[in-house]
């Protein structure tokens, strides 16, 4: 549910529940995106890693 949905209420329950939910989702997908970007930059610079790290 997003704040523009008709069921949304600006109360403590919605703010805590969805704040934490979207917070964790942002951290997880943000970190994954950064890792993908770093991989692209590494490959661009010719830095290649093998599984035996």
């Amino acid at each position: 549910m997003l704040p523009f949905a008709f069921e949304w209420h600006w109360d403590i329950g919605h703010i805590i529940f969805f704040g934490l939910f979207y917070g964790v989702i942002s951290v997880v997908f943000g970190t994954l995106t950064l890792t993908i970007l770093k991989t692209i930059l590494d490959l661009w610079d010719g830095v290649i890693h093998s599984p035996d790290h």
Partner: protein
Amino acid sequence: MRRWLDDLPKYADDSSWWPTGTTRCRPEVFLLWLGLPLTIMAYFTVSALLVLVLGLNQTNMNDYFAFGVWIVVDLAVIALGAGAFFTSFLNYIVGKTELKPIVNAAVLIGFICYTGAILMLGIDIGQPLRGWFGFWHANVHSMLTEVMFCITTYAIVLCIEILPTVLDNRRIGKVPEFGTFSHNLHTIMIVFAAAGTFLSFFHQGSLGGMFGVLYARPFAFRGHLGIWPMTFFLFIMSAIAAGPSFTTMCVMITEKITGKRLTTHKVKMLMGKISGWLLLVYMVAKSADTLYWAHFNLPAAGVTFDSMFHQPYGIWLMWLELGVCGWLPALMLLTPRVRESYGLMFVAMLLTCIGVTLNRFIFTIQTLALPVLPFEKFYAYLPTWQEWGIASLVLGHGLLIFMLAYRYLPLFPQEPELNQQ
């Protein structure tokens, strides 16, 4: 055609995909083994089709038993899968690197437990295509909303956590893009481990909290600490105690089936010790909670302790859970001589896992079996074969993923060294 058949063993040779320095059984033997999970999944498919097409009349759930074996199995596998988040937490955040040889297996087992539970819940909700309604029309006053948010998000985290192990496959890892991505994921894994710990901690708690807030059901209702009922904390404690035991047990069973040593006994003993201490803390809290419930909560609700137990759910279940599958394995796992013995440690871990499963069964089924209105009776519940079929998905799906992962992924870094000819 004849030539193709002659060349079949060459085409079927998958040894270049096996983890470096390991050997696996011949492909035809492996295919035979795969027959077991595939048969279980066929049983699941028939049961799921019957339930989805004909409805819940295929089950023995009714107005009394809104929850049945699916929820029992669901709660049990989620508790047993807690080894993933707790082992990752200890390895990546606390810095207990001695657990590194078993952390891949722990994450894989967690992944199996959580995805299995989600797939089973897809049938339980009746209309799987409307599964997303829980996100969009969220009831923020329900413990189950938090559970749903956390379980689905944690399943995503587990997919990311298992990804480096998949990319480290001998052939896949040779692709520079995958090898580099896997390396970068390894370096940032602490963030995912922290997110997983947060999510898992809260949904384990909320699963327990869901029972503790049932004000009209004195069997489950408990006193609160802040906004959380005691069951919130008890479910977390029992899950983190049983999770490491279940992970180690799965590794031990794999060792016995494959005839190979996968981790050193020292690693297993450490897992046993962690499980033992956590189980002891849980048992102290659980015993205190049970005493308080019997002496204060029940009289306050106007019922007696004896009225909570009817056959087949007699008081023996409570003694079995707290005594044989609670205090006994806790004391066993804390005894160094027991941990040194492969067999005894396995028995203690098995009892721990049975104990936590029994706890989830008692909270789900016995709570609902007890009458709450004067004109109601006490009822017992037995699942139909269709319900067992859907519950068996976790086993079939788990065996299939674990067998494929063991064959092709570097799950056990110590395996090549421990099995040198």
